């Protein structure tokens, strides 16, 4: 087993809600009074788990509560969780931007953190000058930067503009240059926030590749926070799932991502009828989606290759709808939120007049050719055109479809799992 390079012991972080500044003098006095008498800080006893959706009783919340973990040298660890789960707070503490309220983190080796690319870039200075400044901010010595200057410039791909003030750069060039500096840090531990959300696809790939080299090739430790589950899966070896300031799961990256997707995703929380994150006029509202098998039974799971009917149950709110102008789209996405298949009624030339007297719309899929795995369903209903302005109802992640591997080929073998399709085919000569 390789040695532990980061060890967190009971890390907690408390924040005060509301208008920072009001009443702090009073609380400060109280703290001071307690400290004077050698008592524990009275505000450490109160505070609640940081659950955004519930209105709290106290002004103090625990953004992180009793976090414990160990990270070994050479690990690349993905930290995942919903917004507000405490990921950024944890990174801030690790980067020493702020202090934990309680607990200790022991570290070995130099830590470089990348909570943002291009910190300290000055628009009036040239690319070259900014490389030095940014590098120094990130903790490099001047001679180290000098030694790597050519490499950094080459990696950034902005050689031509290197002596131009960065205010003349496109945002893409700016990010490239900034990441290039960070990627060449000589640190044993690298902490990366979602800085890769910017930049074009080609450069993102390059960054991910570089990070891969960093952790796998050079034996460095990488901590990576992202919402991009595909990136976490491909980059990280370990995964930590945070929920409401607590570590709820820690294991290899693959299982952590799966845990997060099945437990932390929004889909399970509310029924479709109660969801408020929908778009459209609401003239028709989808209040439920049923999966129906060939026998007419409502099912929870689908077997790969089976016959399937997807029924959208409707609540018609507004008088008469011209069904001949109705368009329906249904799309399935994989766990990395990549669209796998979609069904558009305008492509199919469907006239919905035949559903005029019904309070549902059925989509029949004679062969459900997706491999075993979890998919989510998005739908859109629109009137007149498929433009967003004409939406009457639309919802993403409306529900999950759990697909079980089936014997698609009738060969007696279950086909492999994976978030992609199977096409009817044959090896022939």
């Amino acid at each position, binding site marked *: 087993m390789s040695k532990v390079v980061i060890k967190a012991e009971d890390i907690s972080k408390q924040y005060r809600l509301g208008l920072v500044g009001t009443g702090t003098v009073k609380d400060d006095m109280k703290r001071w009074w307690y400290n004077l008498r050698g008592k524990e800080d009275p505000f450490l006893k109160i505070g609640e788990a940081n659950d955004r959706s519930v209105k709290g009783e106290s002004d103090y919340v625990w953004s992180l509560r009793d976090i414990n973990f160990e990270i070994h040298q050479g690990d690349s660890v993905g930290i995942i969780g919903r917004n507000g789960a405490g990921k950024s707070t944890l990174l801030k503490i690790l980067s020493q931007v702020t202090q934990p309220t309680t607990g*200790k983190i022991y570290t070995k080796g130099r830590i470089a953190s990348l909570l943002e690319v291009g910190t300290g870039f000055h628009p009036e200075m040239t690319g070259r*000058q900014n490389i030095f400044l940014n590098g120094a901010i990130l903790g490099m010595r001047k001679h180290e930067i000098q030694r790597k200057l050519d490499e950094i410039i080459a990696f950034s791909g902005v050689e031509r503009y290197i002596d131009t003030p960065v205010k003349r750069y496109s945002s893409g060039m700016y990010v490239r240059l900034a990441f290039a500096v960070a990627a060449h840090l000589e640190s044993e531990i690298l902490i990366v926030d979602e800085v890769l959300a910017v930049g074009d696809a080609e450069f993102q790939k390059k960054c991910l590749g570089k990070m891969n080299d960093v952790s796998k090739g050079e034996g460095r430790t990488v901590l990576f926070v992202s919402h991009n589950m595909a990136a976490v899966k491909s980059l990280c070896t370990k995964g930590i799932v945070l929920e409401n300031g607590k570590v709820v799961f820690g294991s290899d990256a693959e299982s952590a991502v799966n845990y997060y997707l099945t437990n932390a995703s929004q889909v399970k929380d509310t029924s479709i009828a109660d969801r408020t994150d929908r778009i459209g006029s609401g003239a028709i509202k989808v209040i439920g989606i049923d999966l129906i098998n060939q026998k007419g039974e409502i099912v929870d799971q689908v077997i790969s290759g089976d016959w399937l009917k997807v029924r959208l149950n409707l609540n018609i709110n507004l008088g008469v709808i011209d069904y001949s102008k109705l368009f329906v789209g249904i799309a399935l996405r994989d766990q990395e939120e990549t669209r796998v298949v979609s069904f558009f009624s305008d492509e199919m030339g469907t006239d919905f007049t035949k559903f005029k007297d019904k309070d549902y719309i059925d989509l029949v899929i004679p062969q459900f050719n997706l491999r075993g795995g979890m998919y989510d369903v998005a739908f859109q209903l629109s009137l007149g055109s498929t433009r967003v302005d004409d939406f009457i109802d639309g919802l993403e992640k409306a529900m999950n479809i759990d697909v079980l591997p089936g014997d698609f080929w009738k060969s007696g073998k279950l086909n492999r799992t994976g978030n992609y399709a199977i096409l009817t085919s044959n090896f022939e000569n």
Partner: protein
Amino acid sequence: MKEYNDAGGAEWDHVIQSQTSLFDLRLREVWHYRDLLVLFVRRDFVTVYKQTILGPLWFFIQPILTTITFTIIFGNVAQLSTDGAPKVVFYMAGITLWNYFSNCLTSVSGVFNSNAGIFGKVYFPRLIMPLTIVISNLMKFGVQFLLFLCFVGYFFSQGQIQSNLWILLTPVVVILMAVISMGIGLILSSMTTKYKDLNQLIGFGIQLFMYASPVIYPSSSVPTDYQWVVHLNPLVGLFDFMRFAYLGVGNFSLTSLLYPTCFAFVILAVGVVVFNKTQKTFMDTV
């Protein structure tokens, strides 16, 4: 490198924790980041007055206009004493030194708020930033001081002032000014992160403090009964020095620098300790 041990006795390079000693100042880290200090100062040099029409001329315009105003208002209208020195150089001596002090103090006391963006994203020893401010402001001070020297040279050649060898001590006095402004600034900066109203108070306070310092009047003009009050102000010795060394007026001896020197080091030490305590959590309150 310093070693840390956890409960199990394992050795670590570094520990992040809530409770640290007040005197764990990590000055070694500041030294490690000395290149950053140089680069920040260079950034200030390179970028100041970019895209302004008059550029570095602003360095001259401000002290000249202030000197003219002071000469007219305090010298001619109010008829304040200048200990017999020509009014223009007398006021200029005060303004040059005072500008440096007030610029440093204002910037250092606002250091957390003006750098919240960068402080919130990356760790480097926060003390680098106040140091940068104090050093960068030397540039402006240098230009204004040159202007002052030109006037001193002119009046000296006219025989109206008696500059003497004490001027060799100027660097010491400037350093004391830097240390005092940084020390006070550090203490104030820590307070402004929590109580924002202080920002208003500081601008106002500095203005008032100028009148409490012998910038527009010689300290000798203060009635004898109140001399001790005026001399509580550590800046008095420094202004007296400027007048005595360059203009040959007022009272000054080496012991006049004793109090400012002691004050400077005490206030810097207190400032650094307070600043260090604040920098650990200021991101939560700023």
